[in-house]
Structure formats: structure tokens, C-alpha cells
């Protein structure tokens, strides 16, 4: 994920809670409210388990949601078409709490934010991939969809099996542990706040 791309030493040293405040207060000009709000909401999910759907490399945004359906009124109207060019039946099979494990460059392509929204609306609790495309990554964070980067799991993964994610540590699968980067709190806080919209509402004194 985004932070996993930052060299390890930078990740450990530079991104601190102070940075989080810096980032968010800069973004929201002169208010400390937001960061305080976010800090209050930080609640690290420690461990969760889910059934896995396995997808390949370069799962693009047109696969996640084809342009044809982008002008439908709501995400709920659209979500049935999720992944339809590749696996038309998949959207109907995914159940709440499932996990997607994919190859490299997941979410490449367009800026359509419906992509992460649909994945979330289908009930997927996180996507574990070898790597993620940039715009998709930002959109996911802003919508509170958890993304985890893991280079090896995909190669070993069998669809239908379950994995257990131990946040900031590793993924457990088939008796083996696949290490994952620790999630910086600033991104985790956006996810936990329920996305950027809620954060901005707070900024504007609405919640």
C-alpha cells in the first residue's frame, strides 16, 4: 500500500502521530479539531478472519465497475455489476466479511471512486494485493476501504480458503505467516473515521 512504498526506514521514523496532525491540519487549514477528532477515533482492529476470493494481476477499474453502469443512481444499483467483465457471478457470491486476494497493480485505470465504494458495498472487509494503483489507493482510504500490500500470499492462496489478518503484523494462512507492514495511524484513522467525508463534516462543525 501507499505507505509500504515508502522506504522502510522512512516509514518507521518519519510517519508519526505528529505527521498525522501535520498532514490533516494542513489539509484543513488551521483547525486542530479534525486531528483531535481523528485521534479520538483511532481504534486499531487487531485481528479478523475472512473467506477469500482470488483475483489476478492488473485488476482494472473497468473490471471492478464497467463505465456502462457508472451513471446509475446509487452504489447499491451498481454493485451487482461489480467485476462483471471478468466474473459476472462474483458480485452475487461475495458475502459480508469476505476478503479479496489479488496480484499486482490492483485498481489500475480510471479515477472512478465507485470502484472502492462497490467493493466495500459488496461487503469485502479488505483487499490484500501484491500492489495497488495510486488513485485507487487514495480513493479506498477516503472511503474507508482497508488495503493491505503483501507480495507472496497471492501465489500460495487458494480461493475459498480463509485467512486471518493480524493488523500491523502478518496474515495467517495455512499455518504460515505472511508479514505485512504496520499501518500508519493517519491512514488508519481516516479509515476508522469512516472516510474523508466524515472527517470534513467534523471540520465544518456538523458532527
Amino acid at each position, binding site marked *: 500500500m501507499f505507505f509500504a512504498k515508502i522506504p522502510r526506514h522512512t516509514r518507521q521514523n*518519519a510517519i508519526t502521530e505528529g505527521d498525522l496532525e501535520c498532514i490533516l491540519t494542513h489539509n484543513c487549514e488551521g483547525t486542530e479539531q479534525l486531528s483531535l477528532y481523528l485521534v479520538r477515533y483511532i481504534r486499531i482492529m487487531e485481528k479478523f478472519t475472512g473467506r477469500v476470493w482470488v483475483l489476478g494481476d492488473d485488476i482494472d477499474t473497468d473490471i471492478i465497475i464497467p463505465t456502462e453502469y457508472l451513471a446509475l443512481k446509487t452504489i447499491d444499483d451498481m454493485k451487482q455489476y461489480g467485476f462483471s467483465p471478468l466474473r459476472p457471478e462474483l458480485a452475487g457470491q461475495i458475502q459480508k466479511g469476505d476478503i479479496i486476494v489479488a496480484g499486482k497493480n490492483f485498481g489500475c485505470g480510471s*479515477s472512478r471512486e465507485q470502484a472502492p465504494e462497490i467493493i466495500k458495498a459488496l461487503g469485502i472487509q479488505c483487499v490484500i494485493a501484491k500492489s495497488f494503483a495510486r488513485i485507487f489507493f487514495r*480513493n479506498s482510504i477516503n472511503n474507508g476501504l482497508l488495503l493491505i500490500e503483501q507480495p507472496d500470499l497471492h501465489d500460495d492462496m487458494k480461493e475459498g480458503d480463509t485467512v486471518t489478518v493480524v493488523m500491523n503484523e502478518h496474515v495467517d494462512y495455512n499455518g504460515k505467516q505472511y508479514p505485512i507492514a504496520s499501518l500508519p495511524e493517519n491512514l488508519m484513522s481516516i479509515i476508522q473515521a469512516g472516510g474523508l467525508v466524515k472527517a470534513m463534516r467534523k471540520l465544518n462543525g456538523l458532527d
Partner: protein
Amino acid sequence: MGETVIEKIIRNNVGHAVKPGDIVTVNVDRVMIHDIFIPFVAEKFEEMGFQKLWDPDKVVLIYDHLVPASQLDDTRHFHEGDAFAEKYGMKNVHRSDGICHQLMTEAGYVKPGNIVFGTDSHTTTYGCVGAFSSGIGYTEMASILGTGTMWIKVPETIKVVIDGELPNNVMSKDVILRLIGDLGADGATYRALEFTGSAVKNMSVASRMTIANMAIEAGAKCALFTPDEKTAEYCEIELNEFQKSLVGDEDAKYLKTVTYRAEDLVPVMACPSQVDKIRDVSTLEGTEIDQVFIGSCTNGRLEDLAAAAEVLKGKKVADYVKLIVTPASRKIYRQAIELGILDTLAEAGAMITHPGCGLCCGRAGGILTDGERVVATNNRNFLGRMGTSKVEIYLASPKTAAACAVAGKIVSPK
């Protein structure tokens, strides 16, 4: 220490030197929203509780993906866009003038050195005039509309040097396809691409636009060209000192440098269904095709239409093959009329459709079905992008596409 172009642009914006990995908050110079996403931006903006736009003049709303409307619900997007523009005092609304990325530079909304965001991944296009531009989602757009700012991480830069003279049948499209093939579809993820070299200097702004447009297909955050006299002429400005300074310093730190000799490049295609599955056209010759599409923000400009017209002049599109031509903007359409290009294309049998995203975004304008094959000049050949998942999409330059239309099969341009 020296700076890359992106580092200079960000320094100028934030007022202090930056290095890759720094997270900074920038003041946004301009934003673009298009018709598909405006209802979502509007909803998020109001949900966030903002009362006004940070600067209505810096916001541009463009209807292009849904023009002309092809489905019952499409026009709702126009009504919601119009209502949002009226409520918040936006004047910059284009309702049928062409594709957003073409209009942003053509209509003068983007200048060298600007920082621009758009709700479309091909926003990288404006790097053709030396602007830092990138695609974002509608939630972030809504937050910029309220605050005028955006946090970014300063990207590392990959330098691409192309020296020499391109062969006659090779266009800038072939250059960027080759580069994407070499880097891979995620080869530049979160990085800036900086283009330089004598071949780049000789390119028109339109050709540079093709390259910047497709930078996202290698995952790049942005693509940058140094503004020069061609840029100045295109933007109808005189470059100021800052804009002139947007050259990568000799001692700037690049993640890597990729070098091409222009003379070595050949016409290529991206084969189904990956943008980085690049093959020489010569190895694909003889493959039968059903349709050719010349258009999009990648390759719907005057020089692209002129190149196609040159190939098609006095010839006919092959029997049972459709040629669809969609100029990228109203201005280009009118210039192409004046130069007789549209008549040449129509005489050859092309269907000329109104400027817009058309077939490229897969909503209308020549959708295909199982077993059909299309050669197209746009930027993506993803599975199902132009119809069913059993449609094969080959991406190519306008010259190659036009030659294929005449032959009814894949051939190399002369």
C-alpha cells in the same frame, strides 16, 4: 542539490524545497470535474458541510462522457451539474465542446507550472505544458472544492530521454506505448515521468499530450515536459522565469533514467487486454479487424486526424469494416472542416461523431460484441472496455489505425 521538474513545481507552490517522500499540502491552481462524477462530487461536497467553493473561477465542469446522452439516466448528470454550477456561481461550464483533457489545455485553463487535479485518471495530460496534474476521486475533489488544498506525497522521478528523429511512420503514440511496455503497467506507480531529449523537443504540444495522457497507464502520478516556445505559443503566453526554469537539473536525483534512440522505434500496438502488452505491428500483420476508432483525449487532435486523412485520401475503408472518427474538441472539429480533413475522412467512409469521449469510455459510439476486434487510438484496452469481455482491443497510433481501416486487417503504416 538539484531538483527535478516536479520538485520545482511543488517548491514554487509550497514555498520551500521538497524531496521525494515528503508529504506536503499544496494550493490547487485549477480543478476539473466531468459529467459522470459531478453528481457524486456535489453530494459529497454538501455532505461535508461546505457552504461555498473556495474559488469558483478555478473550477471547470465539462460534459463529455455522456455527450450525446445514450441512456435514460444520462441527462440527470447535466441537470445536477447545471444546478451545482448555478448554486455556487461557477462560470466555467462546457456542455458539448469536447473531451475534458483537450479543453483544459486548449481553452487556457492550465498554464505551465500549475498544480491541477481532475476527477479523471487521464488528468496527467496537462504535463504536456509543464503542469503537475493528476487524477483523484470525487471525495477528494469535494474536499478541494471546499478548501482549495490537497495533501500529496512528493513523487520520485523517472527520467525518459528520447534523442534523435522519429521515423515517418512512428508517432508519439508509439513512443508512449513502447515506454509502457518497457516499464510495465505499474512500472511508474506513484512516480513522476519526466520527458526530455531532442525528439521530445521536436514534438508538437499535441504529440506531447498523447504521451502525458498515457503516463497513467504505467501507473504514473504525472508526466512532465519542459515548457518551451511551442508551449508558450500553444498557451498564448510568454513564459515567466519560473516557467522557464522547469528543466530537470543536471544534478537532480532520478530514480532511474530510460533512454531511447528515436530512430530505433517502430510502430507498435498494445494487444488485448493489457496496456503493457506491446508488440511490433509487423508481428501482428494480417489479423482481421471489424472496426477502427480514431479519437479520444489520447489521439483525437488535429495532427492525428490529419495523419489519418493522409493515409485515407483517395482510398476507401475496407468493406464491412467501420471507421469511427471522433475529434477531441469542437475547435479541432472546426479546424478539420476548414482543412478539408473531415471531408476526406467522410469520403473514405468514416463515420464522424461529435467531439466527446465516445467509444473510449465504452458508453456508446461504436460498442462491439463477442468475437469482434477493434484497432483504436485511445488509451485503454481493458477487458470489456468497449463492449463484451470477448472483444479484442488493439491500441495504436492514428497512422497505424488508418492503414488498418483501409486494409481491413492489421498492417504497418507506410
